[in-house]
């Protein structure tokens, strides 16, 4: 795989910075997302909150539904594959989706291996809970990293945990010499060359986005202040009482994330946010973030 190909893939992730990527289940929702100023939409049959409610196996979305959404909007269209399901990824590439999310939200297809993402022309985003997981995914070819958070929970606490963890681990690396970095690479279970690169850059070598539990403009601001470069909003928009106003507000909140006066204004009159779930009430085996390694 040529270096230039990887750069073109990371290039699209660069263009999405400072924006909001919204989960949508049909062309009507995609229309609302694009009109509100989303930088991309994630086409999926059931948003995470519904997957939680309904249970069952969650798979890649129906190609027809993805095509309908591609016809509806002009912004990039992303879609999810099950962890390790490279055949679903091949199909999404044939459909020319703009980004693939190898996602813990769907039921994993392989308990040992993730997709070897360098084989694809389409870029991938993957979730992580810590730096080791982020660097393993980048080693496999991910062009963008996001926190896992706890999808469909409407609860930001896990995304905050994951973002803070990654940030503090990166900071730690920047203080280390090569000898300590090798020991740390072993500890993290991450490729040494990437560990060295992160130590030098003081950040991930690909864009670092936030996902999992974002439900309000304040949540978006929090994640941006913690170092996220863009936010994914899954269930937070279309499980709320007034999706269009909420979508508009979160788009603006990401741009003006550090301006409390503006955020106060933006957060006005949005009607009810989605219901949230206390993470302690989700049994460990039902936590989506536990999927993948």
């Amino acid at each position, binding site marked *: 795989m040529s270096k*230039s190909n990887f*750069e*073109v*893939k990371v*290039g*699209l992730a*660069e*263009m*999405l*910075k*400072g*924006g909001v990527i919204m989960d949508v289940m049909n062309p009507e929702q995609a229309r609302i997302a*694009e*009109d*509100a*100023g*989303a*930088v*991309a939409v994630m086409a999926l049959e059931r948003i995470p909150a519904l997957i939680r409610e309904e249970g069952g196996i969650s798979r890649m979305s129906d190609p027809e539904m993805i095509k309908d959404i591609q016809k509806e909007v*002009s*912004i*990039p269209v992303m879609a999810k594959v099950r962890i390790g399901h490279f055949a679903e990824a091949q199909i999404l*590439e044939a459909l*020319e*989706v*703009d*980004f693939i999310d190898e996602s813990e939200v769907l039921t994993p297809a392989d308990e040992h291996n993730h997709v070897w993402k360098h084989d694809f*022309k*389409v*870029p991938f985003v993957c979730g992580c809970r810590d730096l080791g997981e982020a660097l393993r995914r980048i080693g496999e070819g991910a062009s963008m990293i996001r926190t896992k958070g706890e999808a469909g929970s409407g609860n930001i606490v896990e995304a905050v945990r994951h973002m803070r963890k990654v940030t503090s681990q990166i900071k730690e690396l920047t203080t280390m010499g090569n000898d300590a970095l090798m020991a740390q690479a072993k500890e993290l279970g991450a490729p040494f060359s990437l560990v060295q690169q992160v130590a030098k850059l003081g950040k991930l070598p690909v864009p670092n986005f936030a996902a999992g539990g974002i439900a309000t403009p304040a949540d978006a601001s929090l994640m941006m202040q913690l170092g996220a470069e863009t936010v994914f909003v899954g269930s937070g928009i279309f499980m709320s009482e007034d999706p269009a106003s909420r979508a508009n507000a979160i*788009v*603006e909140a*990401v*741009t*003006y994330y550090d301006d409390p006066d503006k955020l106060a204004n933006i957060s006005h009159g949005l009607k009810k946010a989605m219901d949230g779930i206390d993470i302690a009430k989700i049994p460990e085996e039902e936590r989506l973030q536990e999927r993948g390694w």
Partner: protein
Amino acid sequence: MKIGILALQGDVEKHSHIISDLGLESMFVRYSDELNEVDGLIIPGGESTTLTKLMNKSHFHKPIKKFAEKHPILGTCAGMIMMSKNVNHHLVSPLGIMDIDVDRNAYGRQVHSFVDKLPVRLNGDTKTIAATFIRAPKITNIGKNVEILAEFNNEPCAVKQGQHIALSFHPELNNITLFHKAAFCNKGSLKQRESSYAA
């Protein structure tokens, strides 16, 4: 020289690296009155539908047009779309700073994004650079005062009108400084700005 980078959405950071490589100071611009503090402006790549939405909300259209009368603007990809006169999408309201018409996503979806060698003619010199096109727009029509700096497959992809430059591709992703240099380090345009301040 302080160069503003419109930081509503997009690949703002990469442009700031190029500006510092040129030894200039950069500043992120998110409020229209911040245009008073800069001598030039970059409109980066991103999504033009998103940029339009945020520019409308923060009332950027008139101030940028006014800024463009005296100061150079460089637009890449979505930035070029915003600088154009006409765009083929109803959700995008371009600024009309340059006399060009543009089609969005004209090279196709992301799997058709690419890097290729591109000869560029600038100030009498021809230089070949690596140009990265990402879901890139195409220039479909140009006015008579617009100079073509580069073509890809016989279609213009880098253009200059007066002190403004617009590009379909992303020099900031390949650490290419020559367009930023041409827009912001040009002695002629610097002189022009000094006299406009005096007036």
